[in-house]
């Protein structure tokens, strides 16, 4: 099992390596006009104060993270970016992982009244406007072992072309390879009673992970309104988790990825201190919690409001409110701990001190309007010295309804401390 995984990873690595070699070679003989080496190295400790629910689970997750970034640019403005990612975790071997977050060649220029841009390689794409979940955002797979908030993403191989003009911005994506979501291992927290198999990934398409996915996005600004319309056709990024048996006859949880088509809309209205936001998707082809195919509509509406220079200081206070809706109701599969986003309210406040250390405190609360599931997140960010920065956060699962699949994670509240050196 492990050997085959290693083999798969080696093959995958080889493809990437090839891209890395081919890209610079195509640039060979071209004068390097600019280069940069930057990044960060961090030590991190996560502590789960409550006793684990399942045997083997540890009370901590600690280790280090290395994220270097290399950049070269030639005299014509063509550039190549390489950003690998390394995490070592002392508790969960599944959380110890390596990824290529970015490795792409970037070309751009003008074409009459139009501008074009082409990115070839592994990249990260962000779509959307809201803060509390990634609804329309679909290009990259979630690196779930990094953090249950789903913000960290795995690098996605792609060809990404952009054409823009007075009429707006049109982006086209060809995505030749699927990345499976990362899940915690036996010693990890925030998981189901069984560990999700990461060796045998199942796909609806016969092409499996090599299915060629397509996506497109059109965006434009009309005064204070920014609008994005997107479509994705290909392999789902959210797995359906299916119960099965291993060849040895043990129970096993298997990831299954269907073919989906998703239409997305994201919009923001910027009015003085108000940002009003909307995201909505219509998705066909994905499986619901009972395992049946169900087309559905989901949306997030909300906004943020900022108070500047409060109490005659230089500090700013921003309040956030967002409501999530999924028309599958209780059949919506879990997206992220502890929520399913079927009918949830997110409220948050961020206090930015605007001091020399860029100190920021955030507090957020997310609660299910139908069930008794709710959680609290508190965070502190502060620069300690020119190169050192501190991140402290606590995720408190105040209560999880017995009906929720996340009931299994009810004892997985945690406190995390991260100290980074940025170079």
């Amino acid at each position, binding site marked *: 099992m492990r050997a085959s995984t290693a083999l798969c990873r080696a093959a995958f690595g080889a493809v990437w390596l090839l891209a890395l070699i081919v890209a610079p070679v195509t640039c060979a003989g071209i004068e390097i006009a600019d280069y940069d080496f930057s990044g960060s190295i961090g030590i991190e400790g996560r502590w789960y104060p409550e006793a684990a629910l399942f045997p083997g689970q540890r009370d901590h997750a600690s280790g280090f993270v290395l994220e270097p970034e290399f950049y070269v640019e030639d005299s014509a403005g063509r550039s190549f970016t390489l950003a690998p990612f390394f995490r070592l975790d002392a508790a969960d071997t599944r959380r110890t992982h390596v990824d290529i977050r970015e490795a792409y060649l970037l070309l751009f220029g003008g074409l009459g009244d139009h501008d074009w841009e082409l990115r070839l390689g592994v990249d990260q794409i962000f779509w959307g406007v809201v803060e509390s979940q990634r609804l329309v955002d679909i290009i990259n797979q979630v690196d779930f072992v990094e953090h249950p908030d789903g913000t960290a993403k795995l690098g996605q191989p792609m060809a990404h072309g952009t054409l823009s003009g007075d009429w707006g911005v049109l982006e086209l994506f060809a995505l030749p390879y699927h990345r499976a979501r990362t899940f915690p291992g036996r010693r990890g927290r925030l998981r189901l009673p069984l560990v999700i198999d990461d060796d045998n990934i199942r796909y609806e398409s016969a092409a499996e992970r090599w299915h060629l996915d397509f996506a497109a996005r059109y965006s434009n600004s009309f005064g204070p309104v920014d609008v994005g319309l997107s479509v994705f056709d290909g392999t789902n990024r959210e797995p359906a988790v299916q119960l099965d048996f291993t060849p040895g006859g043990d129970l096993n949880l298997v990831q299954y990825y269907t073919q989906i088509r998703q239409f997305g809309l994201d919009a*923001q209205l910027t009015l003085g201190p108000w940002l009003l936001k909307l995201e909505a998707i219509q998705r066909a082809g994905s499986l619901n919690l009972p395992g049946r195919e169900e087309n559905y509509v989901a949306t997030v509406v909300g906004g943020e409001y900022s108070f500047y*220079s409060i109490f005659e200081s230089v500090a700013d206070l921003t309040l956030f409110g967002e409501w999530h809706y999924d028309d599958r109701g209780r059949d919506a599969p879990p997206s992220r701990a502890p929520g399913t986003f079927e009918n949830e309210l997110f409220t948050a406040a961020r206090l930015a001190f605007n001091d020399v250390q860029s100190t920021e405190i955030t507090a957020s609360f997310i609660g299910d309007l139908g069930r008794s599931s709710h959680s609290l997140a508190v965070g502190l960010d502060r620069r300690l010295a020119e190169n050192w920065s501190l991140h402290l956060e606590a995720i408190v699962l105040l209560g999880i309804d017995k009906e929720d699949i996340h009931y299994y994670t009810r004892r997985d509240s945690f406190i995390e401390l991260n100290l980074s050196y940025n170079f």
Partner: protein
Amino acid sequence: MVRIYPVRSKALLVTRCLSLLACLCASLYTAAENPTPEEIGLNIARATDKRAQGYGNFTARQTMVLRNKQGQESTRSLRVKVLEVEGDGDKSLFVFDEPRDVEGTAFLIHAHKVEADDQWLYLPALKRVKRISSSNRSGSFMGSEFSYEDMGAQELEKYTYRYLRDEACGELTCTVIERVPTDRKSGYSRQVVWQDRDELRTWKVEYYDRKDAHLKTLTMVNYEQHLDSYWYAGHMMMVNHLTGKSTDLTWSEYQFRTDLNERDFTQTGLKRVR
């Protein structure tokens, strides 16, 4: 980026400006037409604005040294790209190099003459472009003593003007003008500006807060002429009299009329910045 700035002159306009100044002075001292202080102030601001036009675009590096009351220092390093836009406010792009934890963060402003500016922030860790509110006029820029409104384009239409007096400033003679922000969200009730009469360079600005207390003083030195026309200050010192904090801003690596164009100041361009 402190387009308080560098007063720039355009060779072609010099004659016209000089004659305008001559007229101004004539009217001042002979009181022939009896222009009001407001008219004189506006005329000088117009002449200054005209001189600043025609530079096209430029890139430069800014180094900020932030000092607190105890003298502790902290450094900010950023690159600035500015594109002149005919008939509207300029487009500016700030890219942070230091402190290193915000490296690659970029801030794009499309300034407008009358209506609110448009602003976007690029967050490299998330690869996210976020349109942000431009209501935060008086907030601190990167923890410095410069506010967002100090860093934004100083469009002619953003103030009303009033001529106060002429007085000596060093070896030069300066015109002293009071300007009042038209934006109600501005953190200032008024500003007093010292400009030399020869080249219309700004040497000093006093900022008064909403309670009319003398909040800050900006001093600009090390003027250099670029493209044989435009005078830009190489060094700016902002002192906050209420907190005792100060920020020294040094400009370097000026490059004018580079290959920058509109596409570098779009949301797609913002994701490309280094």
